[in-house]
């Protein structure tokens, strides 16, 4: 109903606490975006250094998830928020959990990439290009919709997730075919299937984040509709 809270609270430390919570979520999402990019780079450029960076930096993201939970509970117990404030706190906590899953998938991609890099390069690697582009843009848009309190953007994400699922299925089928035709590179094809799965999961989490944003902004629960 209202995309932006109209003015600050009379109690300034209430506004400050809410802003700090929001900041933590944004910080966590930007770190995850970076890690995801690094993992993809490590995969596409066949460079283990990027993969290792990504895996190492994941710890910071885990700590941030715990911090977000703590801050959220703190705001609820101290200020007993209602209405838009309450929805914002609850969504922030849930979005934090989703971002952490995305970060985990980035780590999984990095690990798979390292394994792929041990074997010779295959052209099928670039079958992933479209999937990668879509998953990354979905996550970026999910983060943006939270930052801008933009429910429209969030609603679109659900539709794109379906497309991502389709691309994942397509790629899996192609890889299975490849595995039958070219058994020498079977490990690589298998790992590519796993990477595709990670990207598909990232899309799911981005869609979940979108649902939480819509709840925070519009007080609508758009989960589990038309499944």
């Amino acid at each position, binding site marked *: 109903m209202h995309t932006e809270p109209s003015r*600050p609270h009379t109690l300034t430390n209430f506004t400050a606490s809410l802003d700090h919570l929001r900041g933590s979520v944004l910080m966590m999402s930007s770190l995850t975006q970076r890690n995801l990019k690094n993992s993809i780079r490590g995969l596409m450029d066949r460079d283990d250094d990027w993969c290792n960076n990504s895996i190492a930096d994941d710890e910071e993201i885990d700590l941030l998830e715990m911090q977000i939970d703590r801050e959220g509970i703190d705001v609820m117990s101290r200020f007993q928020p209602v209405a838009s404030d309450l929805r914002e706190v609850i969504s922030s906590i849930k979005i934090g959990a989703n971002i952490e899953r995305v970060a985990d998938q980035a780590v999984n991609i990095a690990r798979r990439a390292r394994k792929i890099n041990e074997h010779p390069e295959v052209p099928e690697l670039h079958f992933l290009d479209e999937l990668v582009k879509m998953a990354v843009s979905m996550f970026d848009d999910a983060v943006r919709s939270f930052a801008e309190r933009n429910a429209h953007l969030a609603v679109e994400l659900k539709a794109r997730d379906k497309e991502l699922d389709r691309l994942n299925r397509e790629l899996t089928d192609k890889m299975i075919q490849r595995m039958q035709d070219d058994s020498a590179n079977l490990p690589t094809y298998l790992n590519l299937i796993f990477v595709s799965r990670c990207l598909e999961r990232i899309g799911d989490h981005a869609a979940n984040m979108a649902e939480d944003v819509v709840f925070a902004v519009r007080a609508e629960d758009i989960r589990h509709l038309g499944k």
Partner: protein
Amino acid sequence: MSESPTSPPMLTDDFAPGEVNFMKVEDFNFFYGKKQALHGINLTIPSRKVTAFIGPSGCGKSTLLRNFNRMNELIPGTRHEGDITIHGTSIYDPSVEVIALRRRIGMVFQKSNPFPMSIYGNIVYPLRIAGERDRDVLDGAVERCLRSAALWEEVKDRLHESALSLSGGQMQRLCIARAIASRPEILLMDEPCSALDPIATAKVEELIIELRKDFTILIVTHNMHQASRVSDLTAFFYLGSLVEYDITQKIFTNPSSQQTEDYITGRFG
């Protein structure tokens, strides 16, 4: 000014028992001399529910409450336009005796005001002024009311001691017991907990929720969290107008009006 709804929206099966249109306020304006305190209030209050009036100081919530039992008429220079009906009958109808009206409606005030009499004397007062003399009836009423007010165990051995020897929370519960002695249909409560500590407040709130089974309760409170804990419906007033009126859960998770949102989240002023 946003549109005021005239009936509680989204009535589900929860609300079916009892009457939906038990109390109605229709196009109600109220004046203290030249100053208009209430503007065009339209409200429908169902029976056997707790309805809370919230809003900043001076918004008219207490003024409206005190009109239901025509207590505002005791203040010189007041007048009203519009109507208030209970169970279909206007409270301003010439055939309605103000005394009888006030016996059917109990009132609890912000600062508890027991009479300087014994506990027993306080509770039987409304019965005595209605002419009841039978000792057994009076004794029975005292026990019934004190039990309903969750005060019986605490005072049953000192019913003839002064009511003024009780603690603040006990005095307020005594006033509630006194208010229900003549079995009114409706209970009006004007900030009943604002002078009480948290434990006494919790006891009174628990009492309100219990009493809902038998009484229609209207409570004015400036503590929004109390409204959200205790009430089924909440009406938000501002500067003498009704801004929003809805089921409590909706008001506190997703209010329709920006003003309501600003008030309950503490962004007012």
